[in-house]
């Protein structure tokens, strides 16, 4: 070995290659390229779609800025007229209308023909909708109308090929035209949506509160079992410590969303399932934070107060409690705040709260109503965030 070193020719110090020329760097670059190329493929990244699809999202974005919060009471005026689409069949005979009147050009008209419909006696300058009713009363909107200053309108429609009902006989040809004019009257009030969303957001806050409370009650005693400095003194204690910590880690890694699905199956749809899901997840989350706090307490004050001749209970009260209670409170409030945020998502799988109605509005394409829920969630989460920060600052 030493001989080899002695006989080796003196190395000519080569000029070091720049870092970007080194083989290792190029290899690294090639590896990155492969990883990102594959990532691009599997995640189906499609940038043109961002531009092409913009038209679809426009109504949603537009409605997001005008949520359904305030509304006037709506007065509904309706008028019907019976028609027939078969010359061989007479239209039904309806009782004479007392309010507004609808009059088609002809009461017997084949499918696909143009029909002029007149109306009078409606609210002036109001907008309404014209429906075609099939023999079993299912409405099909065929036109939007607008009344003039006298409360009358004229609209030409194409007679639709409506479903004739179970009996294809003469009754199937007897159909109707319905005009509905809705006029907002009276002062602005919270809309029905606003009232529902308000009620549900309160439910959400309390759902998070109950879940957090359950979690605190279980996590406080468990956290002592999960604190290494207290438990890892003998084999039994060490075992309990590891079991507790493993429980915390496993429970923490199960998303509350999945727990919520399990609990909706178990106790049915509704906020109770959400409370249980958030509670179980929070036991683990809080338990871990609490145990770490217990592990990090300063033994100095414990020694000092023991040395004054205080009893063990007094030592806990004056040296341990002041060190763990304020951080416990801070963690708990932070968790409540997190749970309010999580409970909106839990509502999507039936765990109650505002998420439940938000999902319904989205599914029914009621974007203005959905916008109300989205804004309410944003406001409440931001407020909780701020409040919890203020309280944590005060406590710790």
């Amino acid at each position: 070995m030493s001989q080899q070193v002695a006989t080796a020719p003196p190395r000519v110090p080569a000029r070091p290659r720049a870092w970007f020329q080194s083989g290792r760097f190029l290899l690294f670059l090639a590896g990155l390229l492969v990883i990102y190329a594959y990532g691009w493929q599997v995640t189906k990244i499609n940038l043109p779609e961002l531009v092409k699809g913009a038209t679809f999202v426009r109504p949603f974005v537009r409605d997001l800025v005008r949520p359904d919060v305030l509304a006037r009471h709506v007065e509904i005026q309706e008028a019907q007229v019976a028609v027939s689409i078969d010359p061989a069949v007479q239209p039904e005979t309806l009782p004479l209308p007392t309010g507004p009147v609808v009059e088609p050009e002809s009461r017997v008209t084949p499918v696909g023909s143009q029909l002029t419909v007149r109306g009078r006696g409606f609210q002036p300058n109001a907008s309404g909708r014209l429906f075609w009713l099939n023999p079993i009363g299912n409405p099909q909107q065929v036109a939007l109308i607008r009344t003039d200053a006298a409360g009358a309108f004229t609209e030409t429609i194409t007679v639709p090929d409506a479903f004739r009902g179970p009996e294809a006989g003469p009754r199937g040809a007897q159909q109707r035209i319905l005009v509905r004019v809705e006029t907002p009257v009276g002062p602005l009030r919270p809309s029905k949506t606003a009232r529902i969303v308000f009620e549900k957001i309160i439910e959400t806050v309390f759902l998070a509160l109950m879940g957090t409370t359950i979690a605190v009650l279980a996590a406080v005693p468990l956290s002592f079992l999960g604190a290494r400095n207290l438990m890892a003194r003998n084999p039994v204690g060490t075992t309990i410590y590891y079991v507790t910590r493993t429980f915390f880690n496993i429970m923490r890694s199960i998303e509350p969303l999945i727990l919520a699905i399990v609990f909706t199956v178990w106790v049915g749809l509704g906020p109770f399932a959400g409370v249980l899901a958030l509670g179980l997840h929070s036991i683990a989350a809080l338990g871990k934070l609490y145990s770490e706090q217990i592990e990090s307490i300063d033994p100095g004050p414990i020694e000092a107060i023991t040395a004054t001749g205080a009893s063990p209970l007094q030592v806990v009260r004056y040296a341990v409690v002041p060190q763990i209670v304020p951080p416990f409170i801070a963690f708990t409030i932070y968790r409540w705040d997190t749970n309010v945020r999580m409970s909106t998502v839990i509502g999507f799988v039936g765990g109650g709260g505002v998420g439940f109605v938000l999902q319904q509005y989205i599914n029914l394409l009621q974007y203005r109503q959905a916008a109300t829920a989205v804004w309410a969630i944003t406001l409440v989460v931001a407020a909780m965030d701020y409040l919890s920060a203020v309280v944590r600052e005060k406590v710790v």
Partner: protein
Amino acid sequence: MKGAAIKIEHLVKTFPDGTRALRDISFEVAPGEFLVIIGLSGSGKSTLMRCINRMIEPTSGKIYVDGVDITTLSQEEMRRLRRSMGMIFQQFNLVKRSSVLTNVLSGRLGYLRPTWALMNYFPRTEMNRALGNLARVGIPEKARTRADQLSGGQQQRVGIARALMQEPTLILADEPVASLDPATSHSVLRYVEELSKKDGITVLCSLHFLSLARRYGTRIIALKAGEVVFDGLPADIDERRFREIYGEDAVEVEIA
């Protein structure tokens, strides 16, 4: 108030991991003495202090406080005896989130009814005693301040006030000024010295700086590897003694 008399005979402490912190230590302390214990880190100063109030259980040997052998006392008897032994720590060991007043009052817990104290109720006489002791260490205006808002010197003075709440006959000061700057060290040690001179409290105080030991001690004991290597008057520690205690390479550092 009269200081406690201490007599230590053949004290040995061996830790479970085999460390022999104290090997056959014997000495006596007269009431009202200000005994300074010096020695390198790890020489057994802290262990010796904590054996005297049995925060650490001695392995063998006898410790007499006012003629009572404390090594044979039960836990409950020891707890009662600890009430008359104040302890001051290098890191102050205050409850940082509690107020200064609560920290001082906690020195009195051993004398109070347990239920009252658990509800954080302190009788008016104890409140006044605490405020009086805070005034004595020169920080009466800090009573309502959170302990961690104070400077190091002020925190140590709270530590002294806490010890005073016990109406001690003995004060164990474990490197009380090791975390403080020189000027603050003097101010803190002067309060301790006053307790010894005015109230006649016996003081055992471990110090790092020989200059401080000479200035405040009425007697000095030096420990080296768990044994007493010097026991005498401050003036008797000369260059040769110093090297014996601290090793051949040691250079004495003066502190103003």
